[in-house]
């Protein structure tokens, strides 16, 4: 199909484009990018007053398939992502069976082809995510894995982690760390501090994350592996990563919209939509994360989109599964909390949500940028539109969002993914 996007403000920091331009797409490929293109055929999209970003890329999602299709499927998760302006996502391997075998990767990639969306699956670091033996990383990479991680189950065995990182670095596979020392977390269900004491809920000290990140960073230095610390939640973690980057250790990091915009005070009503791992922490942590995002210590913004059914979230706070969905609100929250509040410029927003994720994953050209001759993966954004997050509006199978009822400023209004116009909301 052919489209002409007229007079959109194109923001592409990689190619240093920040101007009002026209974009001509023919047969799904970006053919021209300049002022005043006349179109011979195809649909014209009026981009006047809108911004055009490279399609967003999420480094951390749970699409729950195979095994937990009642929460989300590859199809429903991809649709939610496309609605939120994303064109690609890294799926976490904590499925059932876990993504520790090429057949699981094959299945994920095949399913993703049913919608115009890119999935870059992360495989497990150890067999069955059991933290005992290495997964068959070379095979998994051949099958299509872009990263390895045991996600929610941090590899506590330091020797095994050393070997895993050495092996992964040999294959140039990204190692993602959900850094939390489970013993130190002590069975907690929210951040340890004044709020956990006030609410009578067991706390998880921020130290459980900082200790784990510190070890992983030291092992990255030892092994030369590409380490990516996901969903940074604590001030101490930001400090450890900043230090590691100063020492030129190959470490990158992301933070979620909920961690840079919310705090543990929101657990006060025992609402399970504020229960996640890592937990919401204090205002001091939140500010440190914003600072880390601003100064580049935190490279990217990722959602940790973690759908759970309403029935599961009906359980008591201590018993409910942790996690919140985020794909449909990520751009809105980022624009509201970081752009409109002056923390980031629009170019920096594009860096955090598209360019840096593409770089961290080592994706081919065309991702994280708007380049003539590559497939169109783009999002049109209205940065001024105000909208209220409503439970019934989610495309995801689940609606466990911590932003329900919030008014956000900024929204993806059209997504072009894999060269196809997926949605247009204006």
């Amino acid at each position, binding site marked *: 199909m052919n489209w002409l996007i007229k007079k959109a403000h194109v923001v592409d920091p990689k190619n240093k484009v920040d101007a009002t331009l026209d974009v001509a797409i023919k047969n799904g490929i970006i053919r021209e990018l300049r002022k005043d293109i006349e179109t011979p055929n195809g649909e014209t999209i009026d981009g006047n007053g809108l911004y055009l970003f490279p399609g967003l890329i999420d480094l951390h999602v749970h699409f729950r398939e195979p095994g937990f299709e009642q929460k989300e499927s590859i199809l429903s998760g991809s649709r939610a992502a496309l609605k939120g302006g994303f064109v690609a996502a890294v799926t976490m391997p904590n499925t059932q069976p876990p993504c520790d075998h090429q057949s699981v990767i094959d299945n994920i990639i095949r399913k993703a082809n049913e919608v115009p969306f890119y999935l870059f699956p992360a495989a497990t670091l150890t067999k069955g995510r059991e933290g005992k033996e290495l997964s068959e990383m070379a095979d998994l990479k051949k099958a299509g894995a872009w990263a390895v991680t045991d996600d929610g189950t941090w590899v506590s065995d330091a020797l095994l982690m050393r070997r895993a990182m050495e092996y992964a670095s040999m294959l140039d596979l990204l190692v993602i760390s959900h850094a939390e020392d489970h013993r130190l977390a002590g069975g907690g269900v929210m951040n340890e501090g004044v709020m956990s*004491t006030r609410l009578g809920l067991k706390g998880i000290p921020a130290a459980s994350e900082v200790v784990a990140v510190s070890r992983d960073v030291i092992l990255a230095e030892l092994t030369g592996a590409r380490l990516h610390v996901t969903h940074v939640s604590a001030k101490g973690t930001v400090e450890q990563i900043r230090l590691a980057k100063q020492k030129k250790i190959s470490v990158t990091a992301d933070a979620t919209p909920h961690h840079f915009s919310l705090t543990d005070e929101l657990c006060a009503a025992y609402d399970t939509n504020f229960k996640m791992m890592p937990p919401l922490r204090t205002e001091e942590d939140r500010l440190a994360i914003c600072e880390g995002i601003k100064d580049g210590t935190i490279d990217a913004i990722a959602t940790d989109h973690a759908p759970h059914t309403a029935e599961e979230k009906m359980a*008591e706070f201590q018993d409910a599964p942790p996690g919140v969905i985020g794909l449909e609100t990520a751009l809105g929250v980022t624009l509201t909390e970081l752009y409109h509040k002056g923390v980031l410029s629009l170019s920096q927003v594009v860096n955090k949500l598209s360019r840096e994720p593409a770089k961290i994953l080592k994706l081919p050209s065309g991702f994280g940028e708007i380049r003539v001759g590559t497939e169109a993966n783009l999002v049109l954004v209205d940065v001024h539109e105000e909208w209220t997050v409503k439970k019934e509006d989610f495309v995801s199978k689940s609606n466990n969002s911590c932003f329900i009822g919030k008014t956000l400023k900024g929204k993806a209004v059209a997504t072009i993914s894999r060269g196809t116009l997926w949605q247009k909301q204006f």
Partner: protein
Amino acid sequence: MSILWKRKDLVGLKDLEAEEIQLVLDTAKSLQEISLRPVKKVPTLRGRTVANLFFEPSTRTRVSFELAEKRLSADAINFTSAGSSTVKGETLKDTVRNIESLKVDLIVMRHPASGAPHRLAESLPISVVNAGDGINEHPTQALLDMFTIREKKGHLAGIKVAFVGDIVHSRVARSNIWGLTKMGAEVTLCAPKTLLPAQVEALGVRATSNLEEAIHEADVINLLRIQMERQSESYFPSIREYANNYQINRDVLKHAKPDVLIMHPGPVNRGIELSSDVMDSPYSVILDQVTNGLAVRMAVLYLLSGVRNRAAKKASVHS
């Protein structure tokens, strides 16, 4: 009197005003003599049904509530279930809705999850009384503790209360902290550092690991039960070492005021947190606490049913 009480539920002392606590204690005082009559029963809650839902084992709290209900002529039904109902695949809300469908007027609930009664109270039109939720609150226990202190010392303002024991896992301590600080009492918490909650001083209390320092000026020492399994969870090296450092006994009481009160919510581990001789001495008001618990729970049931009365009258006026 009940006209001052406006809450549908009693889920914790955290949200209560000092005047409301005062009202419960005064109401309990006026109801105390019922239990001294030859016929220990008044018709106040006749025709009302109370459901006692215990999702965690309890003897004394359950018996105390049941008796309070009987003294006020309410009909009581009991539902006990080990562990949370979600284990059986039914949500707590559904379990309680089933019971509500039997036209119950008030629910008394103990639950292993902190916050369970708070969420239930929000979603139900009937009154909910928290009989202990996880490690969060046990409001009627704190109210009966305060009632006992007031009875023995005449007032609460300025009274120094030391809590000694497993503070971090104690819902009794948390409710007492909220209640006592609102009533102007001074609270000191004493435990090995491993058994003190994070940043607990932010709640307006003093925390120490030195027993002598904690009890030196105390008017009341309220002891908390030490669970044997905390040793295997590395909270302290041994029961022996705990008792050596934190047991209240005759020797330790030499450092305390001569008229200090010894309290304990029970059940007591004799010879661990409290020596037998002190437990059976005049310092101890542990059995008075049990007696007062009855009056306090009667007061809570009475006040909450008053709110329901007015709501019903209002509804009938408008219908």
